[in-house]
């Protein structure tokens, strides 16, 4: 299956081993992009050109010093940072893509990442670019609105979690089963944020399959298994264990709320988070692995998509201006996924995962891929 490509790839390997830099230059010539080769050496910051036309500019950075280096691009005031690339190890190459408008810029390379380093000038002549930073205010507003959204979801999550904990620990199992997937939707909408707390996430959301030997199981899925207990070989939790599990759930969710109140977001974190929500759907929900006892995967699925859509809504005005085609693809993608989910919904209830046919699962998986693929380009459009 690799026959046809082998000849080609070998020649690439040869050029890589004999002339690393040459081959990377050759790669760029094809794209016809606006490229500046930038060398950060022990005693200089050397650009292949000092003048380039406005538009999308790629700095192809190579660190030829023996220290970790960083590169800053400053506007004409020499104070505002337009873009930066940090933590580039010795001999390592990295690309930095920036949208630049006409004007004077300064490039600073700081081998060792301390002191003033070395600078060089860059003149950007008129070209196709919009004004640098034109969308900054919109992006800042989007980030602020997203923070509010996350806090709001966390508040609702805590409220519903408290109700759920009370139902469960007081033995009202039917009502607890009813609330379980609905309460979890608040978690699932902000899952990448919640998961960013590496200590809270496993306590709250660990699946049995992810346990390692000797690890204590807590959180939503422990309770899930207890509420939808397997027919045989399962020992139900005692009243005390149920109370402990409920208390833990409330306590840690409350801590989650406290923490998200002080979180700030950058636009690229929002867009990466949206992509991660789709990853969650692709690996956990479409496959039915997230809620193996309750079969409530489609609730999580719906909430993950809503969380991703929220991000897109907040960034939509910027995306629509910078890449209208991407905007269209995303809107079609969301609509398509929602229509498949709607077909499995009656009121606020979704079909049990086990009731889905193989054909329906494949359709959903394909729709998720069709949405996730353009969504993974959101970051480069937003920050590019």
């Amino acid at each position: 299956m690799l026959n046809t490509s082998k000849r080609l790839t070998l020649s690439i390997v040869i050029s890589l081993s004999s002339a690393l830099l040459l081959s990377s230059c050759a790669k760029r010539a094809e794209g016809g992009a606006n490229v500046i080769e930038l060398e950060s050496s022990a005693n200089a910051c050397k650009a292949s050109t000092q003048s380039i036309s406005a538009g999308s500019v790629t700095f192809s950075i190579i660190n030829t010093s023996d220290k970790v280096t960083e590169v800053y691009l400053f506007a004409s005031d020499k104070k505002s940072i337009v873009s930066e690339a940090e933590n580039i190890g010795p001999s390592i190459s990295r690309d930095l893509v920036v949208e630049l408008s006409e004007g004077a810029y300064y490039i600073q390379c700081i081998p060792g990442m301390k002191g003033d380093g070395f600078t060089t000038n860059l003149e950007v002549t008129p070209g196709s670019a919009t004004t640098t930073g034109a969308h900054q205010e919109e992006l800042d507003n989007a980030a602020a609105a997203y923070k509010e959204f996350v806090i709001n979801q966390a508040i609702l999550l805590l409220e519903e979690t408290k109700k759920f904990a009370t139902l469960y620990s007081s033995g009202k199992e039917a009502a607890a089963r009813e609330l379980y997937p609905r309460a979890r939707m608040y978690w699932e909408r902000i899952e990448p944020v919640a998961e960013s707390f590496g200590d809270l996430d496993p306590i709250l959301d660990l699946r049995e399959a992810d346990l390692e030997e000797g690890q204590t199981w807590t959180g939503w899925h422990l309770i899930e298994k207890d509420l939808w207990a397997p027919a045989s070989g399962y020992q139900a939790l005692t009243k005390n264990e149920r109370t402990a599990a409920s208390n833990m759930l409330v306590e840690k969710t409350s801590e989650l709320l406290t923490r998200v109140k002080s979180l700030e977001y950058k636009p690229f974190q929002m867009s990466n988070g949206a992509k991660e929500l789709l990853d969650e759907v692709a690996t956990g929900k479409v496959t039915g692995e997230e809620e193996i006892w309750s079969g409530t995967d489609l609730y999580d699925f719906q909430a993950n998509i809503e969380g991703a859509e929220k991000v897109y809504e907040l960034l939509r005005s910027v995306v629509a201006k910078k890449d209208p085609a991407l905007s269209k693809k995303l809107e079609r993608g969301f609509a398509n996924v929602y229509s498949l989910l709607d077909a499995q919904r009656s009121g606020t209830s979704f079909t049990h995962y086990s009731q889905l046919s193989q054909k329906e699962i494949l359709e959903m998986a394909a729709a998720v891929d069709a949405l996730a693929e353009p969504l993974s380009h959101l970051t480069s459009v937003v920050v590019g």
Partner: protein
Amino acid sequence: MTEVSRRVFLGGLTAAGSVAGSSGFLLGAGSDSAQAIQTRYSIYGEKQVGITTPAQNHLYLLAFDLANITRSELKDLLKRWTIMASALMAGTLNDVPQNYEAPPRDTGEALLAGGSALTITFGFGPSLFSDSQGDDRFGFASLTPLELRQLPQLARDAIRDEESFGDICIQICGDNSIAVFHAGRNLIREAFGSATLRCSHSGFNGAVPASKALTARNLFGFKDGTANPMVDKDLEDNIWISGSVEPAFMNGGSYLAVRKIKMHLDTWDRSPLREQEAIFGRSRDAGAPLSGGHEHSAPDFAMASKDGTPLIPKDSHLAIAHSSRYGGKKMLRRGYSYENGLDKVGNIEAGLIFIAYVNSLKENFIPVLEALAKSDALNEYISHVGTAVFAIPQAPSDENDFIGSGLFES
């Protein structure tokens, strides 16, 4: 031990491949062209081929379960397999008189493929020595290699029995895909009635010459196995079994650990390059550690980024798998990528047939596997779906000997 021959590769370029046993290496990549590939290895010697042999481009890994056969029937099977494997590696399976009224000895699809740098390597699973009831099936119990038992169950393991284990394995590698398939097909056929195929894994590498200087890439685009043992002393210390601790037939042998690792290509392909490089701890294109240098530069785990955290993240694949964490213990990785149709949600079922040779599973392999299962940042994008271990006996010494003959000497 091996026959030296001229090796033809890629569009008429030729190189004299100097092949000399376990320390030899070949220049140039293999070719799937119709041209006969002249490289031939011999199955006879002290150590089996297909371990330190420069990795070829194709893999066909077979695991067999033995039928309810006797000790002498097993001995006969191993003799027949040895003779056939030797003929397959020499490209001479068809060189026998053919009765026109009988089915051909050679199935014929690889007649022009020559030796194809084929290596055929045999291994014995734990169940050959003691079956699931703990019965000593063939009277080998006292000869059980000391560390031969299945790997422990780890967090996130999603092991499928039907892609795991086996009484006997045969690893077939070569530079011509049809020659590799042909070898497997004929060895399976030879075993009818004595052993049934339990599972098979087809794998491919490519793009990279199997020299000592370059490393193949996995399907995530990264170089894997960069820190393989390179010098003979490393091989003796880490790969080959010697001395009298293990049963005599393991002298010059090794252990083989196999993991079938499904890689979630769809989600990986949507992850930013920054995340990809942070997960592996290497730059993707050059393969250099993020602490700098080139592919084979030693990683500097102390080199700090701007915020003081290591440039090579602590949970990166490189940081967790590096031999410096395991008292310098190394493994010889010889993995291949695989593609196996669609998974249940319609994505490509593809990944890595991870293959490692070590002289101690306990010291060189299991600690690494456990640490990776616990903290590797890569875990989000992979699942381990198959597992197996095998004892690799010494090679048959000459044409009067056969693979595993030492099992029958007591």
